């Protein structure tokens, strides 16, 4: 693997680690006494904090997963060159689009 991809994957993991813990902690807190869309939205809508929290999460996940799947595709499917880069790019952009849309929907939409 290219050194820059290695670094991007490690740094995105570093970013994700506390975010995962925060996400799980909030989930445990949020499900106390039932879980409703209204309750979640009341917490996230208009909140810059949650926008940044999950926005950063989405960026880190997109990078991390795309690089990881790129390696899997290289070693297990034998993909090389343009096909490999295209797969990583489509995966990364696809995850970012899905995640960004969700974050936007629960914060500022």
């Amino acid at each position, binding site marked *: *693997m*290219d*050194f820059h991809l290695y*670094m991007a994957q490690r740094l995105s993991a570093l970013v994700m680690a506390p975010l995962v813990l925060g996400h799980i902690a909030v989930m445990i807190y949020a499900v106390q006494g039932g879980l409703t869309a209204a309750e979640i939205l009341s917490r996230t809508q208009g909140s810059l904090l949650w926008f940044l929290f999950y926005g950063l999460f989405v960026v880190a996940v997109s990078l991390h997963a795309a690089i990881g799947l790129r390696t899997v595709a290289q*070693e297990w499917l034998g993909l090389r060159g343009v096909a490999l880069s295209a797969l990583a790019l489509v995966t990364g952009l696809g995850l970012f689009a899905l995640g960004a849309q969700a974050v936007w929907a629960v914060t500022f939409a």
Partner: protein
Amino acid sequence: MGDKLKVTVRRGGPGAQHDQTYAVPAEDNQTVLDVVSWIQQYADPTLSYRFACRVGMCGSCAMTVNGVPRWTCRTHVRKVSERPEIHIAPLRNLPVIKDLVADMDPFFDKWIGAEALHHPSRSREEAIAPIDPQDAARQEADLGIECINCAVCYAACDTVAGNPDYLGPAALQRAWTLLNDAKDGAHDTILDAVSGTGGCHACHSMGSCTQHCPNELDPMRAIAGLKRDTVRRAFRGRR
């Protein structure tokens, strides 16, 4: 004794390999290399294989024995199988030339690719650089210098199997020993070489190299060291 071993040997060249079975007299003390030599001398003189020292010093007799890469000269038959059956094949992850002879060229090309070669720091006119055996870097280098290029780690490595560009444990370990060698004069060149496609960052730390090294070296530790030093250099900036 009169007992026989059922020995299955992978025969043939590129693209045309098949298994052939031989009945070989079983002995009390018998290495896998003894078995291969018996077949070549008494059953089938066309069998091709490599060996030289017979005592675990030269690294030329490595083969796949019951699916595991080993020095055949240092592997007793009874160590690899409860039953009197063994399967012997050429080393994995390398092209086969004929029968049990693997083509080592890609393996050694990768040593060069990893810059795992000496880069002189002084000319012959200058005094030899003193080496302190207690120095931490020297001790780290000492952990890896007993490698004899047998390619057992290379054959054991699943990352090499999945990624033919990967330089492999042996080349990277030698690069690491040179990086820790005060007499090597091109540390940045080494770090550049192990940072490219197929460099140390392709390693998944699965540890087959360390598990199978007949010299009980720890290439996985060396590769982890390379990863650490390349990252350190990226944060520190080039000297």
